[in-house]
């Protein structure tokens, strides 16, 4: 479970760093960076991947919990 917490906090920090990057951009000249290219489709990709990782992490945790219960009951 410690590992899960670490992964969660890492993801949280990653998400934070992305938003901070976005804010820094506004004050300077608009650059053609990855997240702003192609009609900002990469933003959508980032959002969808975040949701997917969240759901998958939830499933993984459930899986582990059930495995632990199975061991206990055996």
């Amino acid at each position, binding site marked *: 479970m410690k590992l899960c917490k670490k992964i969660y906090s890492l993801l949280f920090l990653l998400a934070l760093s992305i938003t901070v990057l976005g804010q820094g951009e506004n004050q300077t000249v608009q650059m053609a960076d990855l997240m702003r290219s192609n009609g900002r489709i990469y933003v959508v990709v980032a959002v969808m991947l975040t949701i997917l990782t969240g759901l998958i992490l939830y499933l993984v945790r459930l899986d582990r919990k*059930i495995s632990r219960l199975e061991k206990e009951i055996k």
Partner: protein
Amino acid sequence: MTDEKNYMQKAWWKIASVLLLIYTFTCGLLLDVPHLPALQETIRNLYFHVCMWFCMMVLFIISVINSIRFLRSFDLKYDVYARQYAVVGIVFGILGYATGAIWMSYTWADPNNPAFQSFSAVAREPKLIGAAIALLIYFAYLILRDSITDMDKRARISAVYNIFAFAMLFPTIWIVPRLLPSLHPGGESGNPALDTRDIDGRMRLVFYPAVIGWTLLGVWISTLKIRLKILKEKKMMHETL
């Protein structure tokens, strides 16, 4: 359950599912797709909306197989399997229906008409009605099951009903929609998305992995529910002994 690890505890196919889904979500949004009128970028919904139905179909097939296994052996384990696969199949079916509703309201509905008028045209779709009937039949499966308290009777009746429900799937979602004119692809012209003349090669590159990824995800969720249910039953048995 025996001591050796069965497929439910193995990790490799779960990892495969996650990798395929990550591939679907990135490449499905970023790779180039055919430019078609009316559909435009919504053609990417093929990787999500259609996969829900594929996943539902696979889960229902597994469910009916387990019902037959139950009727052959009267092992209550298979009854649990059949029930949980059917439930997760229904969830994916509802998701398929909901995503289809969103998709059609931006492609089929006439933008020049008020929403209500185009709704009356869209609601006549044989595919929609068929899918709704199929899902309702499966809802009835759950209601029937949970209304019987006797364990053996419940397992037997619901296994038989599950086979009937599965048999009804074919006319409602495969046969009838193909006999009637429809806006939905695959109306009178064979298999949408599977026909090699129908689907672009670039899309097949994402579509097939997407189907496998979503299906494995559905199986994963079902196995979690099965394991939980079996644990609960074991606990109940310990308490009564």
